[in-house]
């Protein structure tokens, strides 16, 4: 188990380093930074001054090491537009995005797992076909469009929920539903296929031969094994949701990291864009690692190999 953990951790760290390097290289490859910072009307002298001030005249390797050392300590420099430390900006907004992602995932799981299990138990019946049809429709629907529909129906017509902004729990419901909707199809499909496979397995026949209760057969023996791929996908989906928050937070005007990314992109605020991408990527890596660990808990063959 310890060996497995160490192995996964090593891989995760390697991937994280690669992401850091790539995000550094991308900003350097997109042209001379000093010129783009100085703006279109700057003279050669201004550019030289900026190059001096930001240390852009040093060798690339040294710049990289310097940047890496600071990034690892959580220092991403200062925002040009917000006139604040980038780290502060992100620390302030990340909780909103994380909450939104978790709410979305939770909603998705609450819907997808039971439906997937029911579809598998009644494989081939109208229930199964109905559930899969809903999954298909869900997958085909763009999230911003669903967001707008919800705003019109729940917000304007019925007046149940606030249309936009950041605040208490009620502000998370609609964007949560939208995020959940994008994750439900794949989670449900995977739950269903995992359950179909599990229910057809020899160990389920054994469980039935042991006279176990229906609940125990379905959940303890069936779902436990079907859950393994679902956990991996759930982690990936949460990652997508955080990435997708750029769209959703913009639609609902929630002041999370996604909204921050959108603002900085439109304001050419390089350090912020770079840091947001980096943080989201790192969270993604952490989620994958977490999924691996959960899988190891669920599947003893991984633990004891």
């Amino acid at each position, binding site marked *: 188990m310890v*060996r*497995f953990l160490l*192995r996964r951790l*090593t*891989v995760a760290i390697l991937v994280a380093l690669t992401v850091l390097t790539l995000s550094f290289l991308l900003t350097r490859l997109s042209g001379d930074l000093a010129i783009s910072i100085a703006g279109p009307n700057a003279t050669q002298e201004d550019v030289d001054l900026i190059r001096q001030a930001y240390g852009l005249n040093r060798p690339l390797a040294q710049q990289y090491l310097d940047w890496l050392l600071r990034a690892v300590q959580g220092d991403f420099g200062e925002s040009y537009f917000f006139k604040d430390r980038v780290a502060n900006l992100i620390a302030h907004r990340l909780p909103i995005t994380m909450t939104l992602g978790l709410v979305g995932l939770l909603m998705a799981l609450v819907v997808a797992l039971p439906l997937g299990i029911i579809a598998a138990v009644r494989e081939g019946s109208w229930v199964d076909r109905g559930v899969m049809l809903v999954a298909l429709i869900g997958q085909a629907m763009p999230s911003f469009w669903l967001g707008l529909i919800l705003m019109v129906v729940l917000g304007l017509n019925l007046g149940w929920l606030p249309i936009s902004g950041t605040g208490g729990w009620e502000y998370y419901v609609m964007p949560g539903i939208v995020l959940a909707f994008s994750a439900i199809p794949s989670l449900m499909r995977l739950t269903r296929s995992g359950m179909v496979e599990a229910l057809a397995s020899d160990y389920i026949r054994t469980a039935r031969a042991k006279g176990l209760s229906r609940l125990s057969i379905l959940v303890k023996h069936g779902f436990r094994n079907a859950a393994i791929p679902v956990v991996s996908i759930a982690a990936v989906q949460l990652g997508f949701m955080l990435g997708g928050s750029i769209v959703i937070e913009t639609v609902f005007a929630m002041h999370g990291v996604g909204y921050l990314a959108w603002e900085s992109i439109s304001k050419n605020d390089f350090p912020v864009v770079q840091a947001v991408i980096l943080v989201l990527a790192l969270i993604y890596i952490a989620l994958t690692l977490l999924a691996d660990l959960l899988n190891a808990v669920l599947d003893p063959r991984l633990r004891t*190999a």
Partner: protein
Amino acid sequence: MNPAIEVRGLRRVFRVRQGLFARPREVVAVDGVSFAVPAGSVLGVVGESGCGKSTLARMILGLMPPSEGEVLVDGQRLDTMDRRARARLIQPVFQDPFSSLNPRRRVRDIVAQPLAAQGDIPRAAMQRRVAEALERVGLSAEQGGRFPSQLSGGQRQRVAIARALVLRPRIVICDEPTSALDVSVQAQILNLLAELRRDLGLTYLFISHNLAVVEHVASEVAVMYLGRIVERQESEALFRDPQHPYTRALLDSVLTPEPGLGVPDVGLGDIMPDPANVPPGCRFHPRCPKAFAPCATQAPRLTALPTGQVECHLAG
């Protein structure tokens, strides 16, 4: 005359990696195997799962290079032979007639495949030889037009045999050819193989876990345990008077349909052989009911028998 098959000091090591950063483990599947099969005879190879008998078959077929040692077929080194020349000399029949035939091709195309791979046989000659091979194994021309899924297990195994024979090879490697079949079908296939050998003068290497089947078809039998041949004798002598305790145990565990004899006590413990963890000394000693002092530390030497050889401290 050259032996049909000769192997010398054959060894095959697999490196098994269990993860990106795990140290690879060495699994010795075949460890120092030498024997010769005279033309026209049948060498039976028996042993439990994981003893290396299928790895041995794949090396002799040239499907897998040995880590050490060499294979000679009809006096020629296998690794120096052209693939097409090898196919004309030696052909396989595998266990599972369900998975070894391409489900999307008709029987006659499956049988024609080795001919087509030769590249220089005219179409008319190919058709004639396919028809010949199908008839030889007792399949009708009409069955030649079907797909494998439309045939029974026994008929599929006939297709596999026809495919093996279509190049008129001298040697056929049969790897558990009847293990997936029912007894009545097994009898049909065994009878067919015996008839083909007699009529075409074939040499067989016949691998099976079923000793009763091997006794019925083989003129000589090699018993494998954890990658080594622990005993090899002419069939009659081996079944009458086995020398190795493992051979004895295998023979004892054959359940002949004779009521009243009960289930034999084979006398082996519940330690299973693990090719990734070969015991020192005699590799059979942890399970051997007759093990004594030297077995745990010294590897037994090869002892000659009147019609074969055995590796055991008790022999000689």
